[in-house]
């Protein structure tokens, strides 16, 4: 912690960064912090409750963050994947951000939980994590962490759903999506949802109905899923933000598995590796036009 605070203090004092975006203690657990003066650097914390993907604040369409100056952002490995996504998609240039990597031993599901990692509390996204020491960084802080407890709950649930008949699966998703209020919290929480104008906000023409009837809800969630295929880093922030508890991670994880199968692509923190949505290969599978 001292290492992180000292670094933040120095970056702010030297004028290298206008704001350090990390985590602080809130009344309901850890939460994002925007540190703009060296004196406040001691507010910074990092532990297993720091679940938020702070790469979301690097979205170029957030003028309130831009106004604070050049950001230095604390990133876990999974957050660094989202930063790589923004770099890959030309939403950010590498020299406009300072990345402070933290070695991560996994996070809990919500920031209000105690920091103890158990099979019951560990976030599903930590399963199979390959970036516990982020590489896309300018500074790396913290000690090496032990492996988090293993939970394959998400993949188990996907296998269960895959085993259902299409009618049963339809029924499951109909039940889930019927709850959607179309607040679009999922979109706002997503570090990769950075469109200048989201398709669901377009009205001329209105591609996606904004009403929260099943037709509109399916149109929204299917479009969002398609648009995130091969881009979603699996941080689970959409599911955490959803006020009605729609298990969006099931969709995102399933898409990761499909993209892996179709394009042999796994989301990476290397911004030089193109994502399938932005690349073409002559040997791409194309059974769909047979």
């Amino acid at each position, binding site marked *: 912690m001292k290492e992180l605070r000292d670094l933040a203090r120095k970056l702010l004092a030297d004028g290298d960064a206008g704001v350090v975006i990390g985590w602080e203690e809130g*009344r309901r657990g850890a939460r994002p912090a925007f540190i703009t003066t060296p004196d406040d650097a001691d507010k910074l914390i990092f532990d297993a409750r720091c679940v*938020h993907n702070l790469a979301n604040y690097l979205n170029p369409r957030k003028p309130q*963050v831009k106004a604070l100056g050049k950001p230095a952002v604390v990133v876990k490995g999974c957050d660094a994947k989202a930063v790589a996504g923004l770099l890959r998609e030309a939403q950010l240039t590498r020299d406009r951000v300072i990345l402070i990597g933290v070695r991560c031993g996994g996070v809990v599901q919500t920031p209000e939980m105690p920091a103890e990692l158990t099979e019951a509390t560990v976030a599903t996204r930590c399963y199979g994590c390959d970036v516990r020491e982020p590489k896309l960084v300018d500074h790396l802080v913290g000690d090496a962490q032990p492996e988090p407890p293993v939970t394959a709950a998400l993949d188990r649930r996907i296998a269960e759903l895959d085993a259902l008949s299409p009618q049963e699966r339809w029924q499951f998703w109909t039940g889930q999506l019927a709850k959607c209020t179309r*607040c679009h919290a999922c*979109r706002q929480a997503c570090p990769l949802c950075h469109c200048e104008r989201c398709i669901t906000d377009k009205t001329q023409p209105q591609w996606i109905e904004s009403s929260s009837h099943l037709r509109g809800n399916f149109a929204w969630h299917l479009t969002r899923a398609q648009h995130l295929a091969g881009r979603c880093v699996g941080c689970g922030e959409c599911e955490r*933000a959803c006020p*009605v508890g729609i298990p969006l991670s099931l969709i995102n994880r399933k898409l990761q598995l499909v993209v892996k199968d179709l394009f042999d692509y796994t989301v990476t923190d290397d911004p030089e590796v193109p994502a399938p949505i932005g690349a073409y290969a002559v040997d791409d599978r194309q059974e769909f036009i047979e």
Partner: protein
Amino acid sequence: MSAAPDKRPTPKGKGTKGAAPAAAAGAAATAVAGAALCLTEENLGKLVAEIVAGGTRLVAPAREPQAGVGGSADYRYISSAAELAFGDSLPRMSLKGFFLPQSEVLFKWHRKGADVEIEAVPTEFPPQIVLGARPCDTAALEIVDQVMDWGLRDELWFGRRDATTIFNLSCPVEDASCFCHAVGLNPDATRAADGMLTPVPGGYLVETCTEKGAALIEGHKALFESGDTGAAAQRSKAAAQYRADARAKVAADLQIDTTRIKEWVGDHFDDDFWTALGPRCNGCAACASVCPTCHCFDIVDEPEGVGHGARRRNWDTCQTGVFTLHASGHNPRADQNSRFRQRVNHKFFIYPSRFGEVLCTGCGRCSRVCPEGQDLAEVLACIDELARA
């Protein structure tokens, strides 16, 4: 326990503007009149069965039928007592969706040559009963009544309000994010309720506060016991203790003066305070979705085939950029700082200026649901401190 009746009518005509300040209204609304009866757990089940058998729609906190994420109840239409989840945590969503559905049809249209035929929707609704509403959710309805009857009476809102009988569940107080007392309510408030259930050993103490509430009891008289004097006294004592405990718990959470806050917010539109709050907010608007008093809506026309369609109104929120985006492309609230300020401004300055009370019942849902840890109680405490300085 005071026996002062609480018969605040639903505002009907004009002339309801500038009602009593929230603090005064809320304090009076905690009193319950009417005979204190007992409803055992077993008879609660029978009551549910009788209501459902009678064909009346029944809303109560209940678990999701298919096991989903999370363990909290939601207000749902239920068909058996087995679905009841009175003991669960505060329902995830407030009660407002039963009066202002997240999406509802205002009318349908059919094009007939050069003409358009309008098909109206009914504005009268079959009766529905809510059992186990939290006091903060019920009180919110009466607060929102004011804007729904502001110059133009919203027939759909009041149609549902008139058709509904609400029995509150005296609240045990959820957690430290609750602050109903700080905005003039209490965990056992009966504002806008027709009656209240207070948990006592073996069942609930039942009190009524309107004729509607009394009629519900009358219709199922056999299920409500008054018992002997000794038992009744014991129940009243247990209920009083339950309420006192809840009040003490919530009173520890937040100490503010909403009048002082209103003045400060009104005078500090350009204060740096707002620019310090905005960056954390990602504009997800989950706060507005779960809020019992947020009531803004958008109106859309949706074709449903060739030559016919529906005009709908859908929940909307000031936390999104498109809420204020002009056709020209200009956006008067171009960043999240100004959008978050708007949320606080509307609830604690604009609404009290217009209608005499804050647009908040202190349920704390916005703080619980915020994925980024934005905390309204903390924001209010900060403003209160600034206002005092």
